[in-house]
């Protein structure tokens, strides 16, 4: 399989069809049953766009996200760690992923993942009130949020203002149905994007259909 670089440790692989892969930080270990590839003596994991919104955005032709090897990423809405594991691959051993998840049950999987991936720092807490979380969260180079709540945009704005380094970029996976289940999703996305543009510069907005229905990834840059 031929590889073409997209981001640090992330490649397009070509074997009949185009597939996104990330360099496996923990070779021979799978996280969620993803396919593993051995290419040129290194192991890569398939990054499935139907499971992961960042992957979906890249499949939809988005420009590579700006986080790279060695970066500190704050990930809000880590869930069981599916996408977190790929972000972990990108930032690799010298980087860090602070993964915040509110649910204990999802947290269990996240903790198990953190035992084999030493660059994932699990935090069981509410992203609305990180100050109450009781454990240090440092300034980050990139912030990613995937939280299906009505006030997701407010949560994002608050945390970007607090934790993202100036000049850094952040991405939010907006779910129209979580914000307003009856309105036209395009209108909802437009309104939330307008809200974001009042605090930051909106760099990109990508509709993730058909990989993730009703979701858009919006990327902002902090001044």
């Amino acid at each position, binding site marked *: 399989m031929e590889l073409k670089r997209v981001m640090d440790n992330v490649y397009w692989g070509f074997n009949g069809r185009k597939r996104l892969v990330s360099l496996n930080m923990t070779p021979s270990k799978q996280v969620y049953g993803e396919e593993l590839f051995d290419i040129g003596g290194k192991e890569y994991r398939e990054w499935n766009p139907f499971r992961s919104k960042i992957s979906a955005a890249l499949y939809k032709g988005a420009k590579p996200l700006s986080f790279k090897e*060695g970066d500190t990423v704050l990930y809000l809405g880590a869930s069981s760690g599916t996408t977190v594991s790929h972000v972990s691959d990108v930032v690799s051993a*010298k980087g*860090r992923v602070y993964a915040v998840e509110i649910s*204990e049950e999802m947290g269990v999987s*996240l903790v198990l993942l*953190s035992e084999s991936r*030493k660059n994932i720092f699990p935090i*069981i807490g509410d992203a609305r009130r990180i100050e109450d979380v009781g454990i240090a969260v440092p300034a980050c180079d990139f912030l990613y949020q995937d939280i299906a709540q009505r006030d997701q945009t407010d949560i994002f704005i608050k945390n970007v203002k607090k934790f993202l380094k100036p000049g850094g970029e952040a991405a939010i996976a907006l779910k129209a149905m979580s914000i307003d289940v009856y309105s036209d999703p395009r209108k909802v996305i437009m309104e939330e994007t307008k809200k974001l543009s009042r605090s930051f510069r909106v760099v990109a907005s990508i509709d993730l259909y058909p990989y993730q229905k009703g979701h858009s990834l919006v990327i902002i840059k902090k001044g």
Partner: protein
Amino acid sequence: MDDKPRSDNSKYVEEAKKRIKDRLSLDDFIRKLVAMDAETKKAENTLFKALFDTYFLYFPEAANLIRDKEKFVSTLSDGIKREEVSSRLGIPANSMGYDLSETDLSSISDALSQLVGLSGLRTMINLKLSSILEEKYINLFKVAGPEIASKLISLSGSLKSLSEMPSGKLQVLGAEKSIFNGRKAKTPKYGVIFFHPEIQNSADRIKGRVARVVASKISLAAKVDFFSKEDKSGQILKKMRKEIDKIKNGT
């Protein structure tokens, strides 16, 4: 770049484990039991269909008379051979079906045991749920009944969130598909509480109003269970009875 040390997340992992251990609760166990019951029910139905179809191939004349799962199991539990079943059902033993060997018939008997086993598992799960609720959440146990109470706790996630939600929301818990149908259909009058005896035993015309009363009383029961450990179910049931009688008598 090279002066950054390799990450050491052990402090965060320990803290996360502590928090998880602290927060996992009885309600999570209830939720898993409810899910296990639902999955066992699906497995039971799937196995029954396959087993029925196989027996139908062997003795269609008999199978045709025992299409109901309970009847199927009770008729065949004392032997599945044509000679045994024909006398039990009062029909001739010769059949247009496919003749199976002794070994094949014993395999079908094994499958039947598995089916009975699944049913027994469901009984065990529901007994467990009932005993948990009677011991820990007595008001919900008495006012909503263990089946409905377990499902409500499961749907809301915890007793705490069940006690905090408005009774209108509790009323339609479980009918999410119907709620979010938007402009396509009417909003639902009840969710899982539909199977409450008071609602089942009321005329269609007043089901909605009765559902509202039942929901508000269950909501009250949840609050009592969460905030105090007292048994106020007697008073709650009395009030529920009074309000439902008012509806039934047309006031």
